[in-house]
């Protein structure tokens, strides 16, 4: 008998989604879709605000990666006002970015996805979580809780507030770093580096080998990749140019201001989240798992694939080993976790490098700005992928237009393809259980999606509202209800 399975909510991710799997009469998967079921509408209500308020408003898109929005927004404001922040301000911003990345990557690997690997995908759902990890591996768990919290405390020293910060302002950074604070942070960064080293060694020894079969089969698709690199091709997470790589590994570099020449966004009727694709490739858009068109991925694996090298020694050594094992570009979806741990190492090394730079304690952290009519694009790498803030202002510096493309949005099509691939290979002849369905969800978790980020938009909401009004106030009948 044909039937519809609704797995709701997708858990241990940030934000709201469900999976709708349509089984045919033979009990095999016809379609599997990840429905993103939330919307808030930041792009509309940022309009009409003074542009200098956007670095304070837009972090609320995401409380897990508020720093990414904060920094992309501040960079867009710099561009609107036509100013260049002082070198110390750029270094402070990049330092905050690296510390925030560490906090977020630790959170995802150990608190959200870790339970699947440490306890197994088939473990009962009531223990398959961070509390289960706490009981199964108390020493590791306590250390992880401590270091993640320490990273939050570091951000508090740098900016007064770790979540929804205010310190990155148009033209710079509001709070200079004192020498005492620097010394304290330097010590803490060293501790974070130790955890980063431990994490990748632990994962390579005790986690990944155990799941190599799953890694080689679950959610595997073939796509292109996007990420930020410096002029010489080195990985960078705060600033640089964008690199869009095709599935075969050829690539094109472009300044992020020109993103509209390369990326377009497609709409599907069954998700509030749009589907960006590489329009520059000229092949249109298709999520066919056997022959996708225009589909590229963002986030850790994408960045590790597009960069030519990493300019910190420990992370570079890991990159070399990774490339030797999996090639470039590496396509296996679960390798996102491995790439995440390489980035954790890079960020710890990068934070230490920035803290050892004498310029970091300069009190010249802010230049004056004057409102003007203009357009400004700000781009950073968020933990979940390339993040673009694009603002237009009138002569008073009030916002007249906003366009945001966030990390997870780039991964909308690939996530759906990975889930389709996973569901089709795991559910056969109508047979499935909670372990199988959780394994399907693991294909989503690998991407560490942040659906709060991805669904800042309005577009879908309006269409649904339109339906309501057309039906004289009657609710639209959906599978969710």
């Amino acid at each position, binding site marked *: 008998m044909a039937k519809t*399975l609704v*797995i709701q909510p997708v*858990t*241990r*991710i940030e934000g709201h989604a469900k999976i*709708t799997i349509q089984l045919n009469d033979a009990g095999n998967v016809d379609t599997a879709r990840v429905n993103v079921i*939330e*919307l*808030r*509408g930041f792009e*509309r*209500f940022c309009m009409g605000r003074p542009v200098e308020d956007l670095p304070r*408003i837009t*972090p609320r898109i995401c*409380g897990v990666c508020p720093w990414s929005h904060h920094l992309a927004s501040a960079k867009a404001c710099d561009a609107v006002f036509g100013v260049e922040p002082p070198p110390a301000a750029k270094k402070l911003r990049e330092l905050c970015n690296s510390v925030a990345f560490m906090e977020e990557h630790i*959170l995802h690997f150990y608190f*959200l996805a870790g339970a699947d690997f440490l306890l197994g995908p088939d473990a009962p*759902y*009531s223990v398959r*979580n961070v*509390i289960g990890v706490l009981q199964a591996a108390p020493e590791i768990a*306590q250390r992880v*809780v*401590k270091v*993640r919290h320490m990273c939050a405390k570091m951000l508090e020293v740098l*900016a*007064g507030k770790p*979540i*929804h910060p*205010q310190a990155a302002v*148009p033209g710079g950074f*509001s*709070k200079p770093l*004192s020498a005492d604070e620097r010394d304290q942070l330097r010590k803490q960064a060293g501790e974070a580096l130790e955890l980063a080293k431990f994490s990748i060694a632990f994962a390579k020894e005790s986690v990944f080998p155990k799941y190599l079969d799953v890694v080689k089969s679950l959610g595997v698709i073939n796509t292109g990749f996007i990420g930020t690199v410096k002029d010489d091709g080195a990985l960078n997470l705060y600033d640089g140019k964008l690199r869009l790589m095709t599935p075969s590994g050829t690539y094109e570099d472009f300044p992020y201001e020109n993103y*509209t020449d390369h*990326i*377009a*966004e497609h*709409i*599907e009727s*069954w*998700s509030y989240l*749009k589907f960006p694709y590489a329009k520059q490739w000229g092949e249109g858009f298709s999520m066919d798992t056997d022959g996708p068109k225009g589909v590229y991925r963002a986030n850790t694996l994408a960045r590790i694939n597009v960069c030519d090298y990493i300019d910190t020694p420990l992370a570079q050594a890991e990159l070399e080993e990774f490339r030797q094992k999996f090639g470039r570009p590496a396509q296996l979806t679960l390798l996102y976790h491995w790439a995440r741990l390489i980035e954790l190492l890079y960020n710890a090394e990068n934070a230490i490098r920035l803290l050892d730079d004498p310029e970091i304690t300069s009190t010249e952290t802010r230049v*004056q700005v*004057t*409102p003007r009519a203009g357009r400004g694009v700000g781009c950073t790498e968020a933990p979940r992928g390339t993040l673009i803030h694009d603002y237009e202002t009138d002569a008073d*510096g009030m916002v007249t237009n906003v366009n945001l*493309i966030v990390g997870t949005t780039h991964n909308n099509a690939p996530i759906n393809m990975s889930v389709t691939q996973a569901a089709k290979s795991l559910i056969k002849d109508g047979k*499935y259980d*909670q372990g199988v369905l*959780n394994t399907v969800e693991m294909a989503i978790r690998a991407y560490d999606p942040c659906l709060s980020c991805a669904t800042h938009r*309005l*577009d*879908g909401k*309006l269409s*649904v*509202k339109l*339906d309501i009004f057309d039906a004289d106030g009657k*609710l639209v009948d*959906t599978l969710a209800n």
Partner: protein
Amino acid sequence: MAARLAEEWFAICGGCEVTILDIGEPLIDVLKQVEIVHMPVLMDHKLFGQTGEEAEMEIPAADVGLISGGIRSEEHKKLALEMRKKCKFLIALGSCACYGGIPALANQFSTEELLEKVYRGSVTTEKNGLPCEQIPVLTDRVYAVQEVVPVDAFLPGCPTTPEMVANALLALLAGKALPVLPNKSVCDECPTRREKKAVSTLKRRLDAPEFTPGAPLSDMRCLMEQGILCLGPATRCGCGGDNGIPRCIRAYMPCEGCFGPLSEKANPMVDMMGALSSIGLDPKTIPDRAATFNRFSGAGRLRPIPAKR
């Protein structure tokens, strides 16, 4: 016996959930005393049964319920009712659940205005269709949780503080009443120097204030008296946690009002107009006043702006 805890999140960013983790090491003690029965961000309980076989959404019974985020869809409404039904004690966690928060800034726009934006579209968006199936219907505006179901306690803030969450949970675990929210303002906890007179006209928040890097904050003149708009006078105190110093001031930045109004009955617009006038500043020079003064409390306070003709 461990206390059972359920958590749901609606129109959220996840920052209040991260704040729970920011309790730090004491979190481990708290976790040992609770049994989490539903919490999508951390554990895998599903609403329609673990294999999606149920027709109705179900949350297990719990002693304590936490809801973060304002209500933005009909599904959120249903879930809020289910949480209220199953939880003995229900807490609104963070300013979005308490007052609507930043997402309630959307309450300023009518459907027509919103539709115009959609059809105009963003530069990158194709106009190839509209989402309308397998997704929940959205409500006409953002609602605070208490506009839909009765709430037993409020933990405001964007995000709230680890101390407030820890103190609330520990009090409930000990069978005690929750700490009462103070009705004092952020200014009451702010260490900066006030002389009750502005030394500048009101400026956009574009200029750096005057301060000596490294010197104590008590050496810095009140930001508002320096002409930098600060929501401190109309905002409930408590954001500084154990440290005590308001969080944004630590970065030499003005308060933006994230802890919400001074009390249930307070009107931030009136409070701010009074505070500005009393030191000789003219509130009329502020662009975007309604959304600035009600930045975090728009659920019942912001209405669609009449279209300009």
